[in-house]
């Protein structure tokens, strides 16, 4: 193996039923480098990590590790650990009720007895050595998240790891904690540990990484030195668009401009999941939130609907101050929300199509005023017809419908309440092209009739077709707002990338 290289993965392929998650991917990690693994959701990052750590067996390919002759075979996370590949996951995988020292040593020895003194002495040495602000006999739950993360790293490092995988380590840390973590990462790097850093945060990548490997749709896009890859180009690589192509892309479709008064306005709205932001939408306007996955677009609309714990901010609907802290508040103020996760937050799988349709209206009316059966039947018929929902009957349980038709049922549920402001979070995900177009057309038609709509989609083309205003988010902040002729794919990407260019 070439000098200075600690890990080489060659031609890694992995398929799941119906999906080729990784296709002949190569990856190389050098000694003492921080190597960012980037890609959008579904690009194959986590599959690659899981292959490397033995969670998934690979279909094809070879893994070489410094100090081992020939390819190594890894069948379980324990195997990976024993040859020096350690992973620290984004959710802390330590036990909160044990002490820091115990968390560092439990499960590592085959001793039948626990040597507390020994553990505490060694833990103190390691913590001291790495400058981690924790005491060995402190209960782990008494440490901040960042320190817990660092304890996990200390455990990995003490197990003599050569390759340290940090899988989204920063997503639940605040800025100061991130800085602490980066300090530790640089320290480990100087000790010769190779670090694979998986994250959604572009700025953090540029702050600590030496190299970037980009994956897209299970394919290797390339390996770049950080200084050779400007941020905007990284975004383009991740999305699979070259900048020159983008400049030539034209917008399709007509837009509905904003007209008239403000339907919904939020000032410094914040929730447990998102930072404070300002937002307003006018009657008959279609706007969109865009940004990479993890940028906070879904969290923002969930805050608007009161789906997460709202922690602050002023909200006006139709110019009147209102208080929205739970979905019911939003619903009686004429706001509808089609959630991103249809299976979890949308459908009630065992209820019939009819019952799923009338659900929101029933909630708004209150349980003391049940919708009569005849009325429910009429509503169901009306929307099955209007949205062309393909179902055996209105009594069919919704779970036996296709994804697209389930989505239409949820859409019908909200349309039935005649909201003045409808939020659609990824309404077209996982549904076929025909239905996608229908939904897009419907969005434009509804806006024409005066409904205000927020439309979120991972596909930028789709958003450009439907939205007249795009709010761009990065790292959970609104970083730009695009309207009119700025609504081009190139401009969206530049805004997402931000910083380095312009």
């Amino acid at each position, binding site marked *: 193996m070439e000098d200075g290289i600690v890990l080489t993965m060659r031609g890694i392929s992995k398929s799941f039923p119906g999906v080729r998650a990784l296709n002949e991917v190569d990856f190389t990690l050098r000694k003492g480098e921080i190597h960012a693994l980037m890609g959008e959701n579904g690009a194959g990052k986590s*599959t690659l990590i899981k292959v490397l750590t033995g969670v998934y067996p690979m279909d094809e390919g070879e893994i070489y590790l410094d100090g081992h002759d020939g390819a190594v075979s890894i069948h379980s996370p324990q195997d990976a650990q024993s040859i020096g590949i350690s992973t620290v996951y984004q959710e802390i995988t330590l*036990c909160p009720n044990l002490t820091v020292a115990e968390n560092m040593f439990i499960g590592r020895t085959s001793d039948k007895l*626990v040597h507390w003194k020994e553990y505490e002495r060694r833990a103190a040495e390691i913590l*001291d050595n790495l400058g981690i602000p924790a005491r060995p006999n402190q*209960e782990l739950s008494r440490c901040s998240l960042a320190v817990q993360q660092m304890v996990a790293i200390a455990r990995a490092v003490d197990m003599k790891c050569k390759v340290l995988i940090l899988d989204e380590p920063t997503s639940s840390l605040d*800025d100061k904690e991130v800085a602490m973590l980066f300090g530790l990462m640089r320290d480990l790097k100087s000790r010769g540990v190779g670090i694979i850093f998986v994250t959604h945060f572009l700025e953090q990548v540029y702050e600590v990484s030496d190299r970037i490997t980009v994956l897209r749709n299970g394919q290797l896009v390339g390996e770049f030195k950080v200084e050779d890859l400007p941020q905007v180009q990284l975004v383009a690589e991740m999305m699979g668009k070259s900048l020159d192509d983008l400049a030539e892309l034209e917008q399709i479709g007509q837009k509905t401009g904003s007209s008239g008064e403000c339907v919904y306005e939020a000032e410094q709205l914040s929730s447990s999941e998102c930072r404070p932001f300002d937002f307003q939408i006018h009657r008959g306007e279609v706007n969109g939130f865009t940004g990479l996955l993890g940028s906070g677009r879904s969290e923002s609309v969930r805050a608007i609907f009161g789906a997460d714990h709202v922690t602050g901010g002023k909200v006006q609907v139709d110019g009147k101050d209102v208080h929205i802290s739970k979905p019911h508040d939003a619903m009686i103020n004429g706001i509808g929300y089609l959630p991103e996760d249809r299976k979890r937050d949308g459908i009630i799988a065992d209820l019939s199509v009819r019952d799923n349709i009338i659900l929101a209206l029933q909630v708004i009316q209150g349980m003391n005023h049940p919708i009569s059966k005849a009325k429910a039947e009429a509503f169901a018929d009306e929307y099955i017809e209007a949205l062309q929902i393909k179902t055996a009957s209105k009594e069919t349980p919704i779970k036996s419908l296709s994804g697209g038709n389930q989505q239409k049922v949820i859409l019908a549920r909200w349309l039935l309440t005649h909201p003045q402001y409808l939020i659609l979070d990824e309404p077209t995900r996982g549904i076929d092209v025909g239905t996608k177009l229908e939904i897009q057309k419907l969005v434009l038609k509804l806006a024409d009739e005066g409904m205000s709509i927020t439309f979120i989609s991972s596909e930028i083309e789709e958003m450009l077709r439907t939205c007249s205003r795009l709010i761009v988010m990065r790292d959970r902040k609104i970083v730009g707002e695009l309207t009119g002729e700025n609504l081009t794919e190139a401009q969206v990407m530049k805004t997402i990338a931000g910083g380095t260019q312009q």
Partner: protein
Amino acid sequence: MNSNEKVRTPRLREPLTDTQTLLFISIGIFLVMYIGAILLLGGGFTKPQMFFDLLNDNAALIIIACALTVVMIGAGINISVGGVIGLTVMACAIFLNKTQVESTGLAICMTLLLALGIGLAFGIWQGLLVAYLDIQPFIVTLAGMFLARGLTTILSVNPVKATHEGFLAFAKLKVKISWLGYVAQNGNLIPAKIEIGAIVAVATVIVMFLILRYTRFGRSIYAIGGNRQSALMLGINVRRSVFWSYVISGLLSGLAGFVFLMHKPAGNANVAMRGEMDAIAASIIGGTLLTGGVGNVIGSFFGAMILATIQKIIALSPLNASWWQDMASGAMLAFFIVLQSVVLMRKNAAFKKKVQQTEDGPKNNNTEVKEGTS
């Protein structure tokens, strides 16, 4: 060495862990109750024998409280312990009456092995189902409870009195401590008496404490109760540890049955009826959380003693009636749970405050972390 000093200095001011906090609460409450009883009720409570009587009468309860604690720390439950005691007592009583073994010592040993064997069988069976087939422990042990009660009745519908003379003589053996005794009205010194069962119970508590504190198995159980997924990622053999926790729990239930038989040598379909509920109450009062990861058998010992003391106090007070005992136990349990959650909440709130003071700035909370299987 320099780092050695660094370890020792903070050791003194380390805040209590949840397990320790809850343990101290229950020890404190026990002392307050007991001293209160001495001052207010006087009488029997002034004599050390009262304390030993509480131990003698509740030895089996203390042992099954340990049996519950070990599974509850691992976030499980075992409600078959009362049933196993009932079955063990009945089986042992019948065995003693029918045995042809001449030697008394051998007969007693065989009875003990029978008791432990029954407990072990239940423990292994339930451990396999819970650990390796991932069946809810509540359901598994509920089935175990019904099974044990049913088997007890099959063995004998009528109460069976153990009449084996050797065994009865053995069961009556008591450790006598004269300096803790008292002088009766007729001038005779009556020494304090401790039954063998009580000694076994205290030994069980000590052994279980050491196992949970100093063995790999014990720490694994705490880790599993704290966060099962993490425990797995940390390289702990979760299934095996959970399995052993049920085996130990079953074994202790069998032991408790034997101790029970020594205290009251008669089998009966209703023996230790509700025993599992008392044991759960004792564990919880002793600071074991039903959610797992927090608890201590020493706490459970004091939990059982608190329950026993309440019942004794009520028995000696004008309110002597079983429903008053039940209500007092219930009230105590409710009081404890509220007290525990208040204490833990305040402790955690104080901690959060401290953290926030050191790390202000916008909290970058957990967002979209769903990585598809890609």
